[in-house]
């Protein structure tokens, strides 16, 4: 079976190479037959990648310890589902996952465009093929998932790290990979547009949904990872500014910028060069993120061992950047703007400022990740960058960004009338100030940044509410009908705008949750013998006993804490520690979430009672942290509304590109 898998990987490489070369031939000679053959090659490559995955899964599930990957990441007593998800626990296996998603995406792109974009498609295929060749080459020749264990076949495996034995392992990595890999499609289209000098808005149309898919997947992937860290790793927080977390954040920020500036290009024909730069940046950051994770060059709790793949990825990144930037420079004359920016008080300008802030934040994060490497190269000793650095820039760039989220929708294109500005912003500004004053009275002024953030959230929420209200009223004035129906029609006719507003609401929820749970949280530690209690923030917790329990591959020791709020019993927390049979220790935190306020009472058993002085317990109160997870749900909903196909949009496109492209689209 492993031989079949190895053959399948070589086959993917061969098919990708054929596809890349064939696509160039099809593009230069405008040959339809070769193009059909290339399309088939991608489909065959995807099937082949699936076969390789099946072969590796077979090895994982049947405990084939002759394979390094199986030996290093599973053991006989590992539950079946975790044996299966350990496919992407290893560097090599996750490379295979990457390859499968890439060939799958390429196949879908080829299928979607079998009757359109005929001029662009060969070059899209060439770029995607080239990327596939690289990753297939890595899997086939540099870092094979089917490598053998040297020497005799061991009797049992090393086991999977306990922190990976949970359902998040099934969701978080594949979601992130979907995000990273699908960013190759917008990049490929951008390159194809430059190569063919078809820098009209056609490539944007094809690219928008793929960018949305990638952006949504990265966003959900990051939130899944955050939730995993929160409930499983258990230090009380959900984001540690680990380089690998930043690796997903940076392309997400670039993609967010792109999704906004695309609108400016579509409406005003501006920012054409800028959009190209953003797509190149987003894809490059995805590759860079992959490099960070696989190369071991940064200290991270996520990274794989320093493997041979690192230098290759860096080389690939260099080639991607050099080629795409050169191409962009050569094609600069084709990217002239139709209009220019005329007023600072215009929606174009707010989108531009939004972009600048997003990129400034991405750059600050990038610097934080890269600085340790640079300082080591320069001084011999590595300097680290800690949370305060990131928090500073998050606040200083994030708060204006939050303000713009409220300002942008209310400002007209080209030039807002200065006279109408106050009338437009009157209620949101007053609400924001009033909200801020109210929160300050509640004592939230202890954190100025926090108070500002929350006031801005009120401001933004009111502007979004106003947009929905006014839009629905206008719709009702035109078409009559009930309010709910008008609202539904409104959203249906303007999916991008109102889906976008829903996403903005998600961001507001996220900001409230993050602000409340970081700026206004409490934490305390204590050594508690049985019967002793500790107090935190209005709660009292009393140690009512130590217990033990046996699981499939571990022994659990936990302490039962009776919670009291205002003197009355309010539930039980049972934080514990798992001692796995392999010797590792796992942290099992216990969290009580309040549905009403989203506040969590979070308990950690830091050390068991060894010498009679009691167990070491750490408790945190995280206000409103539930909003962070709710934000994820709202985000997905908003993204879905925005991605949803719009027949009206399709008709509009047909009218514009009309019979012209029927020739090149037949």
């Amino acid at each position, binding site marked *: 079976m492993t031989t079949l898998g190895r053959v399948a990987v070589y086959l993917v490489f061969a098919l990708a190479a054929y596809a890349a070369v064939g696509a160039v031939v099809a593009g230069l000679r405008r040959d339809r037959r070769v193009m059909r053959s290339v399309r088939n090659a991608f489909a065959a490559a995807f099937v082949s990648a699936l076969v390789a995955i099946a072969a590796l899964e077979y090895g994982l599930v049947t405990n084939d310890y002759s394979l390094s990957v199986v030996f290093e*990441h599973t053991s006989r007593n590992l539950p079946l589902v975790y044996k299966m998800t350990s496919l992407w626990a290893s560097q090599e296996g996750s490379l295979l996952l990457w390859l499968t998603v890439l060939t799958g995406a390429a196949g879908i792109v080829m299928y979607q465009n079998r009757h359109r974009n005929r001029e662009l498609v060969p070059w899209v295929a060439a770029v995607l093929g080239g990327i596939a060749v690289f990753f297939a080459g890595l899997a086939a020749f540099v870092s094979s998932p089917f490598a053998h264990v040297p020497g005799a076949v061991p009797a049992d495996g*090393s086991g999977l790290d306990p*922190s990976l034995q949970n359902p998040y392992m099934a969701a978080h990595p594949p979601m992130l990979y979907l995000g990273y890999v699908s960013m190759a499609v917008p990049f490929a289209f951008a390159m194809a547009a430059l190569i063919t000098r078809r820098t009209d808005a056609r490539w944007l149309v094809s690219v928008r949904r793929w960018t949305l898919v990638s952006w949504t997947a990265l966003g959900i992937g990051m939130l899944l990872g955050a939730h995993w860290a929160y409930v499983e790793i258990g230090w009380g927080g959900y984001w540690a500014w680990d380089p690998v977390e930043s690796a997903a954040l940076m392309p997400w920020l670039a993609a967010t910028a792109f999704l906004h500036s695309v609108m400016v290009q579509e409406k005003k024909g501006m920012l054409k060069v800028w959009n190209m730069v953003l797509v190149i940046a987003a894809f490059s950051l995805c590759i860079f993120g992959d490099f960070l994770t696989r190369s071991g060059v940064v200290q991270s709790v996520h990274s794989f061992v320093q493997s041979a793949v690192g230098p290759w990825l860096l080389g690939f990144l260099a080639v991607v950047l050099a080629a795409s930037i050169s191409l962009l420079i050569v094609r600069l004359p084709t990217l002239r703007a139709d209009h220019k920016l005329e007023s600072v008080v215009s929606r174009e300008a707010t989108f531009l400022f939004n972009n600048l802030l997003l990129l400034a934040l991405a750059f600050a994060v990038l610097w934080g990740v890269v600085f340790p490497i640079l*300082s080591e190269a320069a001084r011999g000793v590595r*300097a*680290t960058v800690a949370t305060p650095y990131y928090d500073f820039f998050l606040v200083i760039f994030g708060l204006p960004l939050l303000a713009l989220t409220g300002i942008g929708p209310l400002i007209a294109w080209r030039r807002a009338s200065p006279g109408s500005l106050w009338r437009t912003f009157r209620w949101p500004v007053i609400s924001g100030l009033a909200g801020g004053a109210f929160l300050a009275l509640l004592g939230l002024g202890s954190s100025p940044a926090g108070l500002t953030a929350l006031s801005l959230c009120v401001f933004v929420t009111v502007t979004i509410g106003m947009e929905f209200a006014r839009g629905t009223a206008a719709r009702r004035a035109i078409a009559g009908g009930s309010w709910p129906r008008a609202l539904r029609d409104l959203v249906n006719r303007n999916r991008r705008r109102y889906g976008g507003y829903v996403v903005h609401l998600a961001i507001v929820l996220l900001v409230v949750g993050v602000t409340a749970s970081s700026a206004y949280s409490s934490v305390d530690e204590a050594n508690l013998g049985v019967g002793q209690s500790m107090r935190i923030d209005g709660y009292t917790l009393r140690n009512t006993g130590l217990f033990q329990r046996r699981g499939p591959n571990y022994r659990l020791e936990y302490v039962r804490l009776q919670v009291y709020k205002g003197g009355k019993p309010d539930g039980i927390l049972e934080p514990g520690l798992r001692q796995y049979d392999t010797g590792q*220790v796992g942290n099992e935190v216990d969290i009580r979430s309040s549905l009403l306020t989203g506040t969590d009472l979070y308990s950690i058993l830091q050390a068991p009672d060894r010498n009679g*002085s009691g167990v070491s317990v750490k408790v945190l109160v995280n206000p409103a942290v539930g909003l962070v997870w709710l934000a994820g749900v709202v985000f997905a909903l908003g993204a879905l509304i925005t991605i949803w196909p719009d027949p009206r949009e399709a008709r509009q496109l047909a009218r514009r590109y009309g019979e012209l492209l029927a020739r090149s689209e037949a």
Partner: protein
Amino acid sequence: MSPRPRLVVALVVGSLLAVFLAYQALFNSGTLLVSVAQLRSDADGAAQKRVTLTGTVVRASRTSDPMRFVLRDESSAQTVAVSYRGSVPDAFKTSRRVIVTGRLENGVFVAQPDSLLTKCPSKYSSGGS
């Protein structure tokens, strides 16, 4: 772009850059990441200031309070004793590579609470992808 908007955009870019550089100059000295050998040899003043230390655990006693363990350098045989209070990651055990922040005081590395992290050699120590 018309002249006035262009000026405003340039000012915005300029101030973003200025904020960034100002922060770097004023606040970000960056905590050094040193190995045991570098700590012992006082490379770049490591023995004098707060640093993040990395090494392999050779001996650990979880039961004492504060927790004590000994870290050995990755390439040489030099060791240093560490005194630590706070949360201990799942993957902590002897022969693991760890990272901990603190300062060297009287020959013992006194760690900042909750600053202990582990690195698993050939697999994740936490998290996905």
